C-alpha cells in the first residue's frame, strides 16, 4: 500500500514530466488532467494511511540510508502534500485554459509543471538534508524555466536573476550540509537531532545552521534578500506566478522551519531567533509599503508576497526558548498562515491574471470601470485580500490570532506591532486596487471577457481561504497526526 502511495507521489510526477515533454500542448493538457487526478487520489490516500496508522519512515526502494533515500511521512508532510495537490491542481486547470496553445513554446509548461510538483513532494517528504537539497534544486530549476516561459528579454532577465539567487542560496545550504556531515557523520535530520540531544557531540557550533538558514532565507526571499522575487513573480504567466508564490517559496521555508524546530534548540540562540524575527517583521512592513506604491497590478501582488512571507519568519523567535504549549501554538499559527497565504495568493494571482486579460494592460489605473463588467474576478481578488488582511473569519485571521497569542504568552509583545501594521498596510494596498476599479469612467463594456472556468478557479480558492478560519481545527488536526516511526 505505502509502496504505491510513495510511487504515486514521487514517481508519477517525474513520469508525467517525461510524457508531457514528448507531446504537444493539447495532448499534454489531457495527460496532465489524468495526472492531476492521480496525484489528488494518491495524496488523499496518504492522508488516510497516516490517519489510520500514524506517520512512518519509508526507505525508497528498500535501500538503507545514508546511500538510500529515506522519507519521513508525518502529519505536517501530509498537510503540505494535500495543500500542494489542491493548489497545483487549481493552477494546472487554470493554465490549461489560460495559456495559448498557438504558441509552440507553451507546451513546455507541462513538463516544468510536473518537475515542480515532483520537487515539492520530495521536499515535503524528505528526511535527510541532502535529498532536501536535491528537491530544492529540482524546484528551483523548474521554477526558473517557468518564469522564462514568458519569452521576452524582461522575462529572461527576471529568470536569470532568480536563478542566480537560487543557486547562491542552494550552495550556502549545501555548504552547511557538508559541515554538518563533517561534524556529525550523518545526513538524517532525525539522527543529527538525536546526537545533539544525547550530548554525544558538543553543541555550540552554530555556523552550519546559520549558513543553511541564510541559503534558505535567500530562496524564500526574506527581507533584505527579496530583490529577485517581485520581478520574477510579476512577469511570469499568471498560473506560474500563482504556483511560485503559493508553493515554491514555501518549500525552502518548510526546510528552514524543520531545521529550526529540530536543531534550533541546540544550535540556535536568542539573538539569532530575534534577528530572523526582526527581518521578518521588516519584510511585512517594507513589503506591504512597496506593494502599496506599485503601479502594476501583479507587482502589487508580488510585493504582497514578500510581506506575507515575512510573517512566516516569526516562527523563529516564537518557538525558541518558550514552553512547548506556546511553541505548538506558534507552529499551528505559521502552518495556517502558510495554507491561507497559499490559497489566497494563488487566488489573487489568478484573479489578477484575469483582470489583466480583460483590460489588456497590467497597470492598476487601467482597471477603471472593470467592477461593473467583471465583478467575479474582482470579487475573488477582494476575498483573497480579506484573508491577507487577516479579518475574521478567514484563515489569515486564525493564523494571526494564534501568532498574537503566542507572542503575548511568550512575553514578546513587540511582534504585535508587526501583526497590526501588516494588517493595516495590506488593507491599504487591496483597497487601492478596488478604488481604481470602481472609478466609473465609461458606460460601454469594452472589456475582454475571459472564459467562465478562468473566473471560477480563483473564486474557489478565495472561498477556501475565507472558510479556512472556520475549519481551522480539522485542518490543524492533520498536522497533529501521531508519528510512529516504528518501521524504521
Amino acid at each position, binding site marked *: 500500500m505505502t509502496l504505491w502511495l510513495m510511487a504515486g507521489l514521487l514517481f508519477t510526477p517525474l513520469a508525467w514530466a517525461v510524457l508531457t515533454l514528448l507531446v504537444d500542448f493539447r495532448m499534454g493538457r489531457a495527460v496532465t488532467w489524468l495526472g492531476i487526478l492521480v496525484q489528488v487520489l494518491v495524496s488523499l490516500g496518504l492522508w488516510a494511511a497516516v490517519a489510520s496508522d500514524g506517520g512512518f519512515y519509508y526507505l525508497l526502494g528498500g535501500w538503507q540510508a545514508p546511500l538510500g533515500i529515506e522519507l519521513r511521512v508525518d502529519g505536517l508532510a501530509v498537510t503540505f502534500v494535500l495543500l500542494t495537490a489542491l493548489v497545483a491542481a487549481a493552477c494546472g486547470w487554470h493554465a490549461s485554459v489560460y495559456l495559448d496553445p498557438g504558441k509552440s513554446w507553451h507546451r513546455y509548461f507541462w513538463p516544468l509543471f510536473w518537475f515542480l510538483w515532483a520537487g515539492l513532494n520530495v521536499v515535503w517528504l524528505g528526511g535527510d538534508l541532502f535529498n532536501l537539497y*536535491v528537491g530544492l*534544486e529540482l524546484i528551483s530549476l523548474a521554477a526558473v524555466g517557468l518564469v522564462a516561459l514568458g519569452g521576452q*528579454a524582461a522575462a*529572461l*532577465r527576471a529568470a*536569470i536573476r532568480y536563478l542566480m539567487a537560487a543557486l*547562491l542560496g542552494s550552495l550556502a545550504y549545501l555548504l552547511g550540509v*557538508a559541515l554538518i*556531515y563533517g561534524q556529525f557523520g550523518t*545526513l538524517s535530520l532525525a539522527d543529527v537531532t538525536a546526537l545533539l540531544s544525547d550530548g554525544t557531540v558538543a553543541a555550540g557550533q552554530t555556523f552550519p545552521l546559520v549558513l543553511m538558514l541564510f541559503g534558505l532565507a535567500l530562496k524564500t526571499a526574506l527581507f533584505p534578500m527579496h530583490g529577485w522575487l517581485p520581478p520574477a513573480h510579476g512577469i511570469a504567466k499568471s498560473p506560474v506566478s500563482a504556483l511560485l508564490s503559493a508553493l515554491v517559496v514555501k518549500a525552502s521555508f518548510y526546510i528552514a522551519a524543520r531545521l529550526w524546530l529540530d536543531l534550533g534548540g541546540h544550535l540556535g540562540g536568542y539573538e539569532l531567533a530575534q534577528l530572523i524575527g526582526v527581518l521578518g517583521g521588516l519584510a511585512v512592513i517594507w513589503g506591504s509599503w512597496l506593494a502599496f506604491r506599485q503601479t502594476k497590478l501583479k507587482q502589487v501582488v508580488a510585493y504582497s508576497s514578500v510581506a506575507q512571507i515575512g510573517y512566516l519568519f516569526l516562527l523563529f523567535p516564537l518557538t525558541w526558548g518558550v514552553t512547548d504549549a506556546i511553541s505548538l501554538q506558534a507552529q499551528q499559527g505559521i502552518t495556517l498562515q502558510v495554507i491561507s497565504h497559499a490559497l489566497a495568493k494563488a487566488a489573487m494571482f489568478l484573479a489578477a491574471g484575469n483582470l489583466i486579460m480583460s483590460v489588456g494592460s497590467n497597470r492598476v489605473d487601467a482597471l477603471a470601470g472593470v467592477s461593473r463588467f467583471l465583478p467575479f474576478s474582482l470579487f475573488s481578488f477582494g476575498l483573497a485580500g480579506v484573508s491577507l488582511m487577516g479579518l475574521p473569519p478567514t484563515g489569515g485571521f486564525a493564523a494571526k490570532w494564534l501568532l498574537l497569542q503566542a507572542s503575548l504568552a511568550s512575553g514578546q509583545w513587540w511582534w504585535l506591532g508587526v501583526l497590526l501594521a501588516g494588517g493595516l498596510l495590506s488593507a491599504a494596498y487591496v483597497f487601492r486596487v478596488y478604488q481604481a476599479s470602481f472609478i466609473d469612467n465609461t458606460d460601454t463594456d469594452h472589456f475582454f471577457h475571459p472564459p467562465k472556468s478562468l473566473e471560477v478557479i480563483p473564486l474557489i480558492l478565495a472561498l477556501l481561504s475565507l472558510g479556512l478560519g472556520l475549519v481551522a481545527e480539522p485542518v490543524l488536526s492533520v498536522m497533529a497526526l501521531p508519528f510512529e516511526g516504528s518501521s524504521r
Partner: protein
Amino acid sequence: MTIHLLYAFAGVALCGIGLFGFIRLDHLLRKLMAFNLMGSGVFLVMVGLAQRGGQPDPVPQALVLTGIVVAVAATALAVVLIRRYYHLSGQITLAEPGREPVKKPAADAHREGPTE
C-alpha cells in the same frame, strides 16, 4: 593538521574566491563560472571534511556525484537562458535597459550563432 583538513580548507578558499566573483562580477558568464568555482569548493569541503580516521567515507563521494549532476543541470539551464537573453537584448549583464549603456549593439548579437 591532516591532509584531509587541508583539502577542506582549500575548498573553503575556493568558496570564498567564487563568492567574491559571484557578487562582484557583472558579466553573466563570469558569474556562472564563479558559481561553478564555489560549487567545486563546496564539494571539496564535503569530501575533505568527512574523511576522518584515515578511511575514505563513501557517502560524501556519492553525494558529490549527485551534486555534480545537479550543478551541470543548473549550469546548462543558465547557459541556455543567458544565450537567449543575449540574442534578445544584446546585453551580457542584468542591468535594466536605460540605466546603463548597452555594451554591445543588438545587431551584433544575431551574428553570434544560429537563432532559435
